[in-house]
């Protein structure tokens, strides 16, 4: 029978390699890829010569991506901590729950109210005719899908506890070796 450990004791044991790898992967997906998307979109808009009409969409997408990046920085830190600890470690459960809880908040910070509003200035279109399309305001609402994602994240929290319980004994055995 192995001796149980406290959370404080568990927090001293982790894998730097796994933690750094997870942190780097998160950094790539949360910062580098979105920056590449903005850079790609800028180039695309410039090459298409689409100026004022596309500016509204481009600005909204850029603002959303920036929100994704800035509010996503804690997720990078939490990804490191979550992967730093191995299965069966109490600290892993703790940081997984914190990371998932923050991810729910992050989701609503990136898409406030579960909506994505876009405004397009189309006044330059049909400018030579008697009819002109001045502007288009589009709002995409996906609050329902976001609520399902929240449920999935809550499910993931339960899953992390199940993983902890089923690996706890193995973890303690390895720790006592």
């Amino acid at each position, binding site marked *: 029978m192995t001796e149980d450990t406290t959370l404080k004791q568990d927090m001293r044991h982790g894998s730097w390699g796994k933690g750094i790898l997870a942190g780097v992967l998160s950094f790539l997906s949360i910062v580098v890829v979105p920056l590449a998307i903005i850079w790609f979109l800028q180039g695309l808009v410039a090459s298409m010569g689409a100026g004022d009409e596309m500016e509204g969409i481009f600005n909204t997408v850029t603002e959303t991506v920036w929100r994704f990046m800035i509010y996503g920085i804690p997720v990078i830190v939490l990804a490191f901590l979550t992967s730093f600890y191995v299965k069966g470690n109490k600290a892993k459960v703790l940081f997984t729950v914190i990371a998932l809880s923050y991810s729910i908040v992050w989701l609503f910070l990136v898409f406030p109210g579960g909506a994505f509003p876009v405004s397009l200035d189309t006044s330059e279109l049909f400018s030579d005719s008697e009819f002109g399309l001045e502007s288009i305001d589009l709002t995409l609402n996906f609050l329902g899908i976001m609520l399902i994602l929240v449920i999935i994240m809550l*499910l993931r929290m339960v899953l992390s506890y199940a993983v902890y319980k089923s690996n706890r004994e193995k973890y303690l055995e390895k720790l006592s070796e």
Partner: protein
Amino acid sequence: MKAFSVIMHAVYALAIAGLILFVALGFIPQNTGEMPLDIKLEAESTYEVSESNGILEYNFSDAVDNHEGPADAYTEAGVKIPGTTIYPDDDASVTAAVTAVKAYAVLHPGVTTVTLKDNDGTVLTQMMIMKESNEITTNMYTEISITNRLRYDLMDIAIGVDQLNDTGTVSYRVAESEPTTIKTGETCSLPVDISINSLNSALIMLTGSGDTMSIYMGFDISGNYLYGLAGASVYATAVFESTTDAPDVDIAATQISITSTEPIEQLPSDLNVTATIGAINVTIVNGPGGFSVEMGDGSVNIVDELQDQYDEGDYTIEIGVSPDTEVIELTQEEYAQMLDLIKQVMEAGGV
């Protein structure tokens, strides 16, 4: 605990895969060779025989010109009415057809509607069907038909059309459809009743910045998808440019006065309405001599007077000059809309 962990993993994987599949399939049409949505703005050329000759003539002529081929009028039972062959750009055939339809309806009281069909039996369509109107209100009808080739139903599809002023501060809903569900694989026609009050329409054009006579319209489309989990709403603002110079506009609590030396192209060229709403006199003139609106004589607060009449449940407008007057009864909604609009106009005018 191991078994619980395995079950939880399976549930989690299924939830993720299910959500991705559900959303992805929602945006792939059943037949990838076709457009996911097909939208048309037109109504079948079926008319009430009780409509006035002028309205029927306009609609017959518009439908046949649009079709670019001859057509005949048929009863709802499919009987071809003799003497109703109409040719494009032929006013004589239009007049003759309307006369024949009216005569047929007198002889056959059961016939309440007629439909125009071409030689192949195809029902003609029109973008906008003119309905019985009066001096104040112009009524039109059309249908927006949407074919849904996506995998899930389109829910709560609603369409509205507003008239706006050039700064977007005054809005007047001229058309609206009831929210409708369009099942996957089906085509649904949304009936759109359009009612344009000439007074309201003119007032809107002349508020705002006051430096344009263009007509601004707002198209409001909204709906839900993915069983209500996602939705979209679009508001498009369009402008029908006018070359007419802006008129002099004077808005006070007791009098609204608008005068222009040029007529407004978008309004009827023979518009000459004298109306009385409670104690408020209104005249609207649009013609070769220019355009003018006079509302109130400077002695009575316009909004208070109209509000009093509304509160008393009196929604009538008297048209014409005594003794040749005609009383038009607006619905409560129409009157409330007019009152609300005048309040907005006053507010926009700084009153």
